[in-house]
């Protein structure tokens, strides 16, 4: 087999100029980059001065679905700061990721959308050190453009005639939604319990539901395709996102460096711009 014909020497620097055009581009980029995992660093780029220890190789990060866009951007920043590294992401519902990790998935870092899910992993003895909260997220009502169902508050979620999507109680955004409805003393009448927050958002984007409860950050990601409505009870359902390096990580040093990068001012700036709050 010829050595890496798909990864010419100038491939990686060139791709870094690609901006976040849409949700697919960065993912495709990550896939391509991870295929070039072992590529030695060609040009020394803007390595941040003061970084301790050389970090190299593939770093595998399991991230909650709601982190998809901001972590993809963070990954690019990290690779720029640490030439020779390649950050690979697996984004899914936090609970699925937790089960995969508990079943021995070879990940270095886990960033969960809920402390409860992280606790599962910690109880299973798969975290190295204590998980730290790195951002918070709050819920927002997402409605299709023009708000066809004329949804204004959580109370409209109890209306049988409106088509409503909520996250399933088994996933973090569903648990947060339950807390919000509890705080509002309302019983929602949803038509579907979506398997993760992005699935709920998709239903709004496609205009198939009148409203869904999703994270504020997801509303931002969807841009002009959905409208977000704040509601008072969201304060009762603020989610902490914990992050931890995993025990038996294939690349513990790389995992720690990525975690540090997420907690660094640069990392927090990216997450803040995506709509996350500070813990």
């Amino acid at each position, binding site marked *: 087999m010829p050595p890496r014909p798909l990864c010419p020497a100038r491939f990686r620097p060139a791709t870094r100029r690609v901006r976040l055009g849409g949700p697919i581009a960065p993912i495709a980029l990550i896939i391509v980059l991870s295929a070039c995992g072992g590529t030695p660093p060609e040009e020394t780029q803007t390595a941040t001065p003061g970084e301790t220890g050389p970090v190299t190789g593939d770093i595998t990060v399991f991230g909650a679905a709601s982190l998809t866009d901001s972590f993809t951007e963070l990954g690019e920043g990290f690779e720029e700061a640490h030439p020779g590294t390649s950050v690979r992401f697996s984004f899914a519902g936090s609970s699925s990721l937790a089960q995969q990790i508990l079943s021995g998935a070879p990940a270095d870092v886990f960033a969960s959308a809920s402390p409860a899910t992280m606790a599962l992993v910690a109880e299973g003895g798969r975290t190295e050190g204590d998980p730290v909260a790195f951002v918070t997220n709050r819920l927002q009502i997402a409605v299709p453009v023009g708000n066809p169902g004329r949804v204004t508050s959580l109370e409209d979620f109890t209306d049988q005639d409106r088509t409503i999507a909520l996250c399933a109680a088994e996933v973090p955004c569903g648990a947060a939604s339950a807390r919000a409805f509890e705080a509002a003393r309302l019983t929602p009448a949803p*038509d579907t319990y979506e398997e993760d927050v992005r699935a709920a958002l998709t239903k709004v984007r*496609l205009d*198939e539901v009148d409203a869904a409860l999703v994270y504020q950050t997801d509303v931002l990601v969807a841009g002009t395709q959905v409208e977000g409505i704040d509601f008072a009870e969201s304060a009762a359902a603020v989610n902490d996102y914990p992050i931890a390096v995993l025990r038996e990580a294939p690349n513990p040093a790389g995992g720690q460096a990525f975690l540090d990068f997420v907690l660094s001012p640069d990392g927090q700036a990216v997450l803040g711009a995506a709509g996350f709050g500070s813990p």
Partner: protein
Amino acid sequence: MQTPADGRGTGIPPILLLPAGLGLAFLLLPLVGLLVRTPWSELGTLLSRPAVLEALRLSLVTATAATAICLVLGVPLAWVLARATVPGVRLVRALLTLPLVLPPVVGGVALLLLLGRRGLIGQHLYDWFGLSLPFTSTAVVLSQAFVAMPFLVIAVEGALRGADRRFEDAAATLGAGRWLIFRRVTLPLVAPGISAGAVLCFARALGEFGATITFAGNFPGVTRTMPLSVYLALETDPQAAIVLALVLLLVSVLILLALRGRWLNGVGS
């Protein structure tokens, strides 16, 4: 297993034994893994949960309805593909395999874009009749039929191509009309193919997940079928998920065994 009387032993060429055995092991060992990890003590309590029975009932009803739709639409389609001499049939046959290649989740999105509230056809259904298909049990049936029908069509088409057309010709020379020939000659000839296709179709419908959760959503009693229950249980309680998966497996094996025995015996004689 009884040895055939003609002295050919098991009739299996030894050189086929190894790959055949490996194939069998590859297909069955994961199920053994499932069985080994099954918390048998929880089986009773889980099975008595109303939510589980509800999901099981919904799965059986929708998969049966989907199979019925596939039979009614799929058998004629297979006939056309196998017998029609119009140009473009080969292209149609190739297009027909697309739902097989399509990831079911994408199939679900495609169904939403066609039949959803803002879909190509769905918007008219909604505007004119106030009809909205997503998040209904009908949507579950449609998702299942969408992914399962190609299996039936391909099986039946294969049977039709393999059937001896001289029987049909003979019936025609005896004065039978086309419809009579189709009913009394062609259908009985390809009945084993139809039953095999229907069984495949039913099995695929019963296990359908991706298109269902995307197009029909997930609501207990309405759209939450067994595979969706298994998936959600996996999020928090893998033990329960294993038991649920096992229940689905047992029920489908029982049904398939019962159906096969009945149809094939009835047809073969």
